């Protein structure tokens, strides 16, 4: 019987190795899977490429990995934070200790969707004529300059959700949804930290946001580390 539920965070992140590319859900604090982040931190994984909207804050979020030197490269729309405290992204970046690929937020989520949907790339007007299009192929479409953007896929997606059933069907909580449903489509291993396990059928089939086909493991927020 298919059962995506795992009992603790060690099982939730099992198999993720050094050098992994990780899609990390969340916008600001909303939707960041803090338990999974802590588990990856505790596991001491190194040389990670992280794709996330933000670059970490004062919370025990991506900042944990940054401070521990676990991240080689960040693909991100907004790496700055007023809340940065210790060993922040800014420090690492200015010291040349981390690579940054800056992507407009809408292009970032669209590139992840593109990867998850099995497409090869897309043309967007966003960024045309700006520094963020430098080195990218462009093309005039209907008289407007467009930039060719490539799909993003990753080894792992770490997400936060509200409810999950054993099949991996997910709902989210308000604006914590943000990148998660798209990230869930674009990684080999998709893990969600959830507030609650429910029985199959408890989530209205019309209100499932991420169907379980996309999800590999679900772990309770309060599960043992």
């Amino acid at each position, binding site marked *: *019987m*298919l059962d995506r539920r795992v009992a603790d965070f060690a099982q939730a992140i099992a198999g993720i190795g050094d050098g992994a590319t990780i899609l990390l859900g969340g916008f600001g604090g909303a939707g960041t899977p803090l338990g999974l982040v802590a588990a990856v931190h505790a596991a001491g994984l190194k040389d990670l490429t992280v794709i996330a909207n933000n670059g970490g804050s004062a919370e025990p979020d991506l900042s944990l990995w940054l401070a521990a030197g676990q991240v080689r490269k960040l693909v991100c729309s907004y790496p700055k934070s007023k809340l940065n405290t210790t060993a922040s992204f800014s420090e690492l970046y200015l010291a040349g200790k981390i690579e940054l690929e800056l992507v407009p937020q809408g292009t970032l989520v669209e590139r992840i*969707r593109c*990867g*998850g*949907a*099995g*497409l090869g790339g897309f043309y967007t007007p966003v960024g045309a004529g700006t520094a963020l299009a430098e080195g990218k192929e462009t093309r005039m479409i209907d008289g407007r300059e467009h930039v060719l953007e490539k799909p993003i896929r990753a080894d792992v997606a770490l997400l936060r959700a509200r409810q999950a*059933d*054993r*099949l991996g*069907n997910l709902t989210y909580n308000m604006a914590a949804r943000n990148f998660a449903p798209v990230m869930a*489509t*674009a990684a080999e291993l998709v893990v969600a930290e959830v507030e609650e396990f429910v029985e*199959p*059928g408890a*989530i209205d*089939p*019309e209100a*499932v946001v991420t*169907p*379980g*086909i*996309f999800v590999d493991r679900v772990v309770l927020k309060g599960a043992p580390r």
Partner: protein
Amino acid sequence: MSTPLTREQLARRIARAIPDGAFVNLGIGLPDQIPDHIPAGREIFLHSENGILNMGPRPPAGEENWDLINAGKQPVTLRTGGSFFDSSLSFAMMRGGHLDISVLGAFQVSERGDLANWSTGIGEGVPAVGGAMDLAVGAREIWVMMEHTSRHGHARIVRDCTYPLTARGVVKRIFSNLAVIAVTADGLEVEEILPGLSLDALRAQTEAPLRPGAMRPLEG
């Protein structure tokens, strides 16, 4: 020699090959019968490209809901834990490689796994493709379910498809009423063959070259 598998036997053979927990899309036509033969205790999740996951069987007469139909436009049901979504996400599931297996009917399959299953060519009237090309490109494994030869006795497993292509190099395994054939980098390999049918007799009904593989007995 055993008689060739009936359609029901062929559906049963394929049903046995689908692993527990697999997410599967079944093409319209022959593959329709597969769900009836899934072995007891095995949980298979059926996808329908019009936006259903965990589709169940046809409802009893009188309980049809015409907003709950499959890709063949037949009434179906939703199993517990199923979900509805739009066509965009449904095709993202395919193209993105999220389905484990797609079982499709075919007119022809080539020795390189090219698939022709959407059109018998010019002059047939109105062309229609539906989700055939999307399915053929999308799932992790594409299986073909078909009779080994055409109604007129022509080979359907060919060197090159003469019918219009659905997709190139996508088929992984052919389940026919005479054999189970894997498409490998080195060509076609016979994994199972109808008991009593010789490889030469099978070759006589197959245009593409066949190599002997496991050659296990094909059972319905």
